[in-house]
């Protein structure tokens, strides 16, 4: 029986936290050097682009609702013939 890629959830969560950590690192770098921080730049951009930043807020909320307000749908057993990773890469390159 086909199964979902086992480390999938762990990798996705790891990537999310890596992004958050890199952001925090950039903030610390700016704080240490007393530069205008990334937050500061984003805030000033948002101040001058209210509609754009409002749109991004809306996208955040829509994505969150998409994740938590829909049920988990288990993967169907696939009727297609399995491919090796090399065949998959060739398929995508075509």
């Amino acid at each position, binding site marked *: 029986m086909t199964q979902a*890629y086992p480390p999938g959830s762990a990798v996705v*969560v*790891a990537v999310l936290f890596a992004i958050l950590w890199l952001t925090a690192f950039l903030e*610390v770098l*700016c704080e240490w050097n007393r530069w205008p921080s990334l937050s500061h730049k984003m*805030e000033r951009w948002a101040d001058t682009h209210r509609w754009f930043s409002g749109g991004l807020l809306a996208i955040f909320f829509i994505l969150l609702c998409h994740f*938590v307000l829909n049920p988990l749908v288990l993967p169907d057993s696939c009727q297609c013939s399995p491919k090796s990773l090399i065949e998959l890469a060739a398929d995508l390159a075509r």
Partner: protein
Amino acid sequence: MRPPRWLTWLRDVVGRPLHAAIHYGLLIVMPIIGFPIVARLWSEELAKCDFGEVAYLPDWLLLIPALVGLAAGRYLSWLVPPQDYEARAHRELNSGAKRVGPTALVLASAALVVIWFYEAVGTAHYTVVSSVTGRTANFEPITYYIRCAIYHDKAATDFGFWTMVTILLFGFVVGHWFWSDHPGDAKENDSKVAV
């Protein structure tokens, strides 16, 4: 809305060090929260993510930490004195400071490329065979893995503690960046009105 007097006082006394502490603190908090979550997910049997008849999603309560995080991020800016906010904007930038913004954009764009590429593969539900173990596996969209992680969290903690913490963190960052509030001090604004 203006900050109340007690908060203005707090800001003037501890605002700068507290703001800096939050920045440094987040650098430590992220791995402390992230590593246990990833380690636990990696060790679980996630292949089917089948919890039988139990349905942990949809859950409206998970929107509450997002709203709390958004508000906390928005009003965190009250900890920065208004004159500091303006002073930093007009400070002469060295080459290092000028590189921060473009670096962040490059990292974000690279991450988005990887994410959308994987999302295309996952949405197509490709089935692959491992040449090492001979096992077959389906690639699924990222939403599947996120919901699967939420299910595991709720199964372990009843109400999904780590899910709420993660949503709170993201809401905080989004609120602080895109919905920040920078009111002037009451005295400054009153004097401007008088003039």
